[in-house]
């Protein structure tokens, strides 16, 4: 029962662990909230519901990270970007399986999920993007 789950960031990641991209929709004004939040930032209503988002979107911008914090050092160089989903919402994330020279602003990408949990807080799965 998605409707009973709290409108929190942690819950967003629990859904990611179920391979679903979810946002909150305000029942009062219709605003889509991603990250989900306990209160609609447009009309301040707390009357919300979970909605599932499509996984495909368009790459708006990207970078290739060469210097990373310790936690990500073993992955360099890696690509991160911001994807605009079909619903108009934007999500940042890692782009895997594509070489830096093949990446282009405007290309279509699809969200996928890495459901292995880290051993420390936060115990969240990660979503990432790849070629559809």
């Amino acid at each position, binding site marked *: 029962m998605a409707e009973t789950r709290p409108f929190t960031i942690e819950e967003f990641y629990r859904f990611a662990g179920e391979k679903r991209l979810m946002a909150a929709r305000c029942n009062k004004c219709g605003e889509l909230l991603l990250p989900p939040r306990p209160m609609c930032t447009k009309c301040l209503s707390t009357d919300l519901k979970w909605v599932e988002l499509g996984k495909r979107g368009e790459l708006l*911008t990207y*970078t290739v*990270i060469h210097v990373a*914090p310790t936690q990500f050092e073993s992955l360099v160089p890696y690509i991160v970007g*911001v994807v605009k989903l079909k619903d108009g919402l934007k999500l940042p994330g890692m782009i895997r399986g594509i070489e830096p020279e093949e990446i282009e602003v405007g290309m279509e990408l699809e969200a996928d999920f890495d459901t292995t949990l880290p051993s420390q807080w936060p115990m969240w799965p*990660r979503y990432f993007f790849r070629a559809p």
Partner: protein
Amino acid sequence: MTRKPLVSVVSAGLSKFGKRQGLYGRELFAEAAKEAFNRCPNLEPKKDIKALFIGHMGESYEHQGHTGPTVSDWAGLLPIQATRVENACASSGAALRCGILAVLSGMCDVVMVGGVEKMTHRTTPDVTEFLAMASDYPFEQWHGITFPGLYALMATAHMHKYGTTEEQMAMVAVKNHHNGALNPKAHKQREVTLEKAISSRVIAWPLKLYDCSLITDGASCLILTKPELAKKFTDTPVHIIGSGQASDAIGLYERDRFTTLNAGKLAGQEAYRMAKVEPKDIDVAEVHDCFTIAEIIAYEDLGFCKQGEGGPLMESGATKLEGKIPVNSSGGLKSKGHPVGATGTAQAYEIYLQLAGQAEKRQVDGAEIGLAHNVGGSGATATVHILRRA
């Protein structure tokens, strides 16, 4: 006619910026405070100063929080109220704003504002991690997006939309290093060539080492008072005539556009409106060049050129020391250095020197109105202050 002053700056101090081994941040702050006291012999710091607002971003660097009383003690100012202000890299721009509010409220006649950060004793991966705390944790840091990475996302978007080039970005580095070479307090007092800048190693493509500001130790401060009291302390006050501050979403990805910092734009508009000046009236500006693309975006957000024309403005030479609107005469964050918490008031310090005619080799002739633009994180905070020669 510009507006009447909000407050007056009667003195200012800046520690030497650089790799300051063997010192704590509080000791750097004492160095900046001492310069400010020396510049203003009519001021009795222990008697006159009624409050201290100190910008400081990260307790991780020195394992030290509670910065307000700590630096106040070292500046000899106990037991006055001392409050730390944290808005990431805009911490001391925001502290300056707090100081202005404190004087304007009538509660304090004289206040000290400043900033401090001690960073260079930590490893680059550590600093990268600490700086990333100014960005969104669950959606940005969690996915490996670094702080240079966020500005790289802006740079890619700006290049894609407006045709801005890596060469134009490198030109910002060359210009600011040229200016920094003239500033005895700058961290890196040496010129770089365009070839060296553009061929430096990639940090977060399209940003390379020379597109990034420096990891630096430093402290800065200003002493503010009511305009009607300024002459009691100095014959050469500099007035603050406009102040703006605005906020945006912590996550870059949440914003409508990645090619502009809306908070910077709004803070600029507020400051211009308050000061009753326009972008064309600005004689000298310090803008937040944490990355070269940030300076190009600042030109546009502050109205020095139209949206999308920041790259060509850099290329035209207009923002060089001898240009129409010299930007970052101090060397900017790029060459003077970026001890994050200290940056906002260090920018105001440079504008103070320029308007007081004390900027020596990098003096902009006849500068009357100056602007300081300070950005926190990837633009979730921005402050803009406009100063005028008295």
